[in-house]
Structures are given as C-alpha cells and as structure tokens.
C-alpha cells in the first residue's frame, strides 16, 4: 500500500465534505420530525457537534503546497514547497 492510498483513506474519514454531509443529514432528520424527545436531543447534539467540527476544520486550515519532484532513482515523490518539514 503506497503512501497515496493511506493518505486518501485518512482523508476520506476526516474530509470536510463527509462531515458536512452528515450535518445536513442530522438537520434533515430533525426537520422531518416524528422523533421522540430523547432521540430529538440526540440528533440535535450530534448536529451541533458536527457543525462545530466543520468550523474547527475551517479555522485550523492552512494551505499546504507541495511539488512533484523526481528523486535520483527517477521515482516520483512529493516535496513540500515551504521548507519547514521535508516530506
């Protein structure tokens, strides 16, 4: 399994799009009504936590830039463009 696949899997779990979609689902469930009080509270709490997670992701984000690079062996690696932590 190459690094690209692992990264993609991690991204899939944590992706903004995924969390946002779950938030929309929670809102839709609560809007649809018909839930008991306990379930309504549960959906409400979930929804608020999801919205907070979205906001956290936005607040914490910093653009990450990298560049396709060829190493000595000719294989393709990526190199971050800001020189703080090499890949």
């Amino acid at each position, binding site marked *: 399994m190459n690094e690209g696949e692992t990264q993609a899997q991690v991204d899939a779990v944590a992706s903004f799009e995924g969390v946002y979609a779950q938030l929309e689902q929670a809102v839709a469930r609560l809007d649809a009504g018909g839930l008991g*009080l306990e379930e309504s509270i549960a959906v409400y709490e979930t929804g608020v936590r999801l919205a907070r997670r979205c906001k956290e992701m936005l607040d914490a984000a910093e653009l990450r830039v990298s560049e396709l690079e060829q190493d000595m062996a000719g294989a393709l690696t990526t190199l971050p463009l800001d020189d703080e932590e090499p890949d």
Partner: protein
Amino acid sequence: MLSLTVTQIGSHLRGLLEMDPILTDIWVSGEISNLSRPQSGHIYFTLKDEAAQLRCALFRPRQTIASLTAVDHGAQVLAHGYVSFYEQRGDLQLYVDAVQPAGLGVLAAEFERLRARLEAEGLFALERKRALPLFPRRIGVVTSSTGAVFQDICHVLTRRWPLVEVLLAPTLVQGDGAATGVVLALERLNRRNDVDVIVLARGGGSMEDLWAFNEEAVARAIFASRVPVVSAVGHETDYTIADWVADVRAPTPSAAAELLVPDQLEIAARLGGREQQLRAGMRRALDRLQQDVEQALRLLDRYRPDASRLGAGVRALLETMRRRLTHELEMRQQRLAGRMNELGALSPSGTLTRGYALVHRADGELIVRAAEAHAGDSIRVRMVDDDFGARVEGGDGADRGNGATRQTRPRPVPAGQERLL
C-alpha cells in the same frame, strides 16, 4: 549505370516525398491561379509566387465551407496539405485539406485547421465534460514554477479555502518542449489517486506564446485525463484549443482558483444557518411533546367530574397521574433548557468566542434584554472559558444604554472609592 523504368522513377519520387517530414504536413502561401472546378466536384488550382508555382488538388471529401470560401481566382491564401507525386500524369502536387486567407497568418490558419478537425472528432463534446468536485481535497496545478501565476492561484486558495492541498506539476509553458511538458504533467497527475481536479494555467501572451495549448498532443492528453481539467490559459479574450477540450474554461488563473473551491465565509454562514435549523427543529419537537402531554392532561380532567362516582381510591390515582405527568414535563423542559444552554455556550457560531457573554440571574434564569437587569442585581456572566459574578450598576431598565458594569472579581468597594474603578 543504373537504369529504371518510368514507373520505378515515379514510385521512387513519390516515396521520397511522402517520407519527408516537411512535405507531409505543410502550409504553403501563394496566389491562386488556373482555378478549375470540373464536374467531378474536385477543385484544382495552381499556387504561385514571383519565382515558382505548385499544382494543387482539393478533392471533394476534404472540402469544407471554410476552404471553399477562401478559394478564389487571384486570392492570396495559405493552403495546408502534403506534397506528393501523381505518377500517372507525372505531376508534382500539393494534396490540400485546408485553405485559409493569407491575411490571417499561418498560426491562425493552423489554429482553425486543428480546431475544426478536433471538433469533428468530438473532443469538445459537451456531454463528456465532467462536473468539478464541490470540496476538492487536492488540486493539481500544471504551470511554470516561476512567475506570478502559481502565486496568484495560491493566494486566492488561501483566502477562500485553505483546507485544500495544492500539488504543483511544474512545466515549461511556452517554447520548445512546452507541449510535451504539459502532456507529461497531466499524465503524472493522473497516475496518482489523490488529485481531485487539475488546473492548466499560464499567463497572457501572444498566439505564439500560448501555442503549446493549441497543440494536438495537449488536446488529446486533456481529453484522456481521468481527472477533471480546468483550463486557465492567457487573458480573458485568449482562447486556446485546450479551453475547448477542458471540462471547464476559466478566463484567468485567479478566476480558476475562485471557481475550484467554495468560499469559507459563505460556508461558515451556511453552518450558522444549519445550527439555527437544528434549534428550530428541537423547539418544534419540544412543543409537540408538550401538546401531547397537555392533551393527555385534558383527557384526565374530563374524567374528574365523574370521578366522584368512582371510589376515593380511583380519584386519588387520577390525581397522582396528573401530578406526575406535569412534574415529568417540567423536569424534561428544565433538563432540555439546561442542555441547550450548555450546547449554546459551546455553539460553533462562535458568539462566545467573539467576546459575547451569557448573563444569568442569581436564580439561574437567562437575562436576554437589558431591561430585565435592575440596579443592585447579582448576576453571573458566562464567557467562553469560564464565568464570574458581577453586580448591576447604573440606571434602570429602558432608559439605560449599557447597564451592566463588569468587575473582574466580586469584591467589596470601599466607601468613597467607587469613582476610581
């Protein structure tokens, strides 16, 4: 001494011509003369200039409206095709597939020829164009590593959606090797599995400067790209063939960055809206439950007058049920209000993080309007991190602007020293 038949010479000549790289794909400029349109539908003419002339044949299947319009007696044209030897008649001929007025220049003529051919092949088809991802996670940028274009794109992305990752696939964007470089970059990005969308970007320039993005190889590489491609080449008024093959055309590289990602401010506002929807949904659920319980209570009340006919024991039972239901409802309301207060305090709309505070009376009830706070009241002020006690000073109710004055810790004020605070 070598001796060949005429046929052999003819064949040899044709072979030589058809192998020559210049003669197999050439634009020839000259003046049209000896124009003939026989009944066969084919068109024959001679291209000439001051020192030479060349026979030309434009056969029916190769004729287009554009070339037919350009072919006229005495017209100065650019004719495209390949040169070969027609053995049967011993004629050296240019077999023509496109004719353009010479005034446009050879670049424009070649551009038009390529555009028409690729369009006919279906490379520009609208049905094939893919939608761009709404929240891309990684954007591949094919552009020069020097110059302002890449910087501009990164600036816009930082402002709008810093969540995204940018992967630069550097290449020459003009001159020799540019077309190959772009094709290679597209292939490398497509080989990965983490790039959601690709941008081809380069700044403004002349038609020569932008020519790499008109090359057939680049067009085919864009067409073959599994990842959706946005073309952002040149200025708003520059159109290249890449623009037509790509899934989306952006007028400039900065405009491309705008359309690739959402605006975080807009999304943040939408998040706030969703929160409001959640609260409204919660209130509705609570209202509904309250109605249900009240209805149950009313039903019980209806039986009360008849209860005197039932035993005292049954009467007592009905009373107990009534009391319990009322109590249960009140408790649930309180619990919910408490939970909503807590969650409201942690709410991501960021009210508290921006310095707003929740103000409670001593008995725990939330103060929503300044008019509810009276001089001398003890209040608790809840900020995002903690809460503290305070006392209301100043005037009363509606005739006051900001009523509450904050003290960081409740401490006794020595007589006569109030003014110093």
